């Protein structure tokens, strides 16, 4: 079957790729472009490991067709850090040990980025419900929430005791 030409912006850089119609954006990112940071944990939108930001919206890339990325701006885990400098969210996840096997981590960090972009001052409850779509099987969420609340305060310029 003929492949479709798609032009998009990925992590701030223009990207062009060919993909089959039924390839998901996740498959395109991982297999065509080689950005394997986004993970496939379920393929059905139930785990959040494939979370990416498309035009300022947090989505599951496993439930979006690659061809629908045409003209869109996509941020993946690979685009969160500033070169070699970790994003504060990444730094806090590391410091809080809010990760273990690391498979859910890219999705959780991208989801946290989307949360704080939209709501820089979430309550703990808001953070827990915002991150409701991201399953983690190792670390048990508590450290994730601590990291999120702390980095939110940091990014607002507040000092945390």
């Amino acid at each position, binding site marked *: 079957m003929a492949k479709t030409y798609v032009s998009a912006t990925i992590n701030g850089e223009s990207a062009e790729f060919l993909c089959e119609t*039924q390839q998901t954006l996740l498959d395109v990112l991982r297999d065509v472009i080689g950005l394997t940071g986004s993970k496939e944990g379920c393929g059905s*939108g139930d785990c959040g490991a494939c979370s990416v930001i498309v035009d300022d919206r947090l989505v599951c890339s496993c439930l979006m067709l690659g061809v629908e990325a045409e003209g869109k701006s996509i941020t993946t885990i690979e685009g969160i850090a500033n070169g070699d400098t970790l994003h504060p969210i990444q730094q806090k996840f590391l410091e809080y040990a809010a990760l273990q096997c690391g498979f859910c981590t890219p999705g959780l960090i991208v989801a946290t980025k989307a949360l704080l972009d939209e709501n820089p001052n979430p309550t703990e409850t808001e953070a827990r419900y915002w991150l409701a779509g991201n399953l983690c099987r190792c670390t048990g969420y508590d450290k994730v929430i601590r990291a999120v609340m702390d980095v939110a305060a940091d990014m607002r310029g507040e000092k945390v005791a």
Partner: protein
Amino acid sequence: MQAFTLTQPSNIQSAVAAASEPQTKYIAGGTDLLQLAKDDIETPRQLVDLEPLPMSGIHAGPNGLRLEALARMSDVAAHPAVVHGWPVLSQALLASASPQIRNMATVGGNLLQRTRCGYFRDTGFACNKRVPGSGCPAINGENRMHAILGVSDHCIATNPGDMAVAMMVLDAELELIGRNGTRKVAIGDFHRLPADTPHIETILRPGELITGIAIPASAAARRSGYLKVRDRASFEFAVVSAAVALDMDGGTIRSARVAAGGVGTKPWRLPEVEAALTGKPARAATLQEAAGRAGEGAKTTAMNAFKLVLLRRAVLRALQTVAA
């Protein structure tokens, strides 16, 4: 997933024209359709992509709310006019799925979300909804989450929606377009009971498309709420849910709208509860008595019999919350 072509029409008319081809489905948010396609439950040869169409507006005015079909669940849920004028709708949307899914899924698509019945969603099982006449293993199977209202000998699959349940108490009207023009249909008439044709789930004709949802403003809409009961605190389909909208005159209920989710083969209106509330004072005993009527005609299994009890309690709690 079977290979398919993707057509990206430039307007609604060409979308409808493209959809007249055989084995064609519309795709909007894609959150349910792609899951179903991956599992070979849906095997379209052509998808008509609605995404590029400018149909995602949310229009709120003094007389009502009009949602264009491609409005995202998250945008509707967060819209200030919806939060204030139709709280049951905002609450139901926020109780649905996850932020990621709500950001992708559209209100039009959500009305067409298919059942979560595990027998339906696995081609390794028989299922009358998927393969008419093949049988319904859920009736004697793992049916804790299955419906108790509107069931038939052919299907007991639960309609999974939250939003549609809220719309049942808001007198929502769907705007449809097809080859033969446009028509309107009340939300309560949109979904069909399974009867002996569980594979036909709505009154949509082949190729027909939902373009918008009109919801009137009302005192009841402003005084409304949604309660969702589930095993997990978030990101789970309803075990039971209740939507309530009350038009109150002081302490008296002028009129009531009550519906339930997680219990019906379609979003389920509870007229028996509404009748017991109309014109009555909103006292504890009234609410209790009315809620106790919920689920008239329920047909339960050993595993889901609790849903009838839970339904009544959920309705009562929702009534208490909204009436307070």
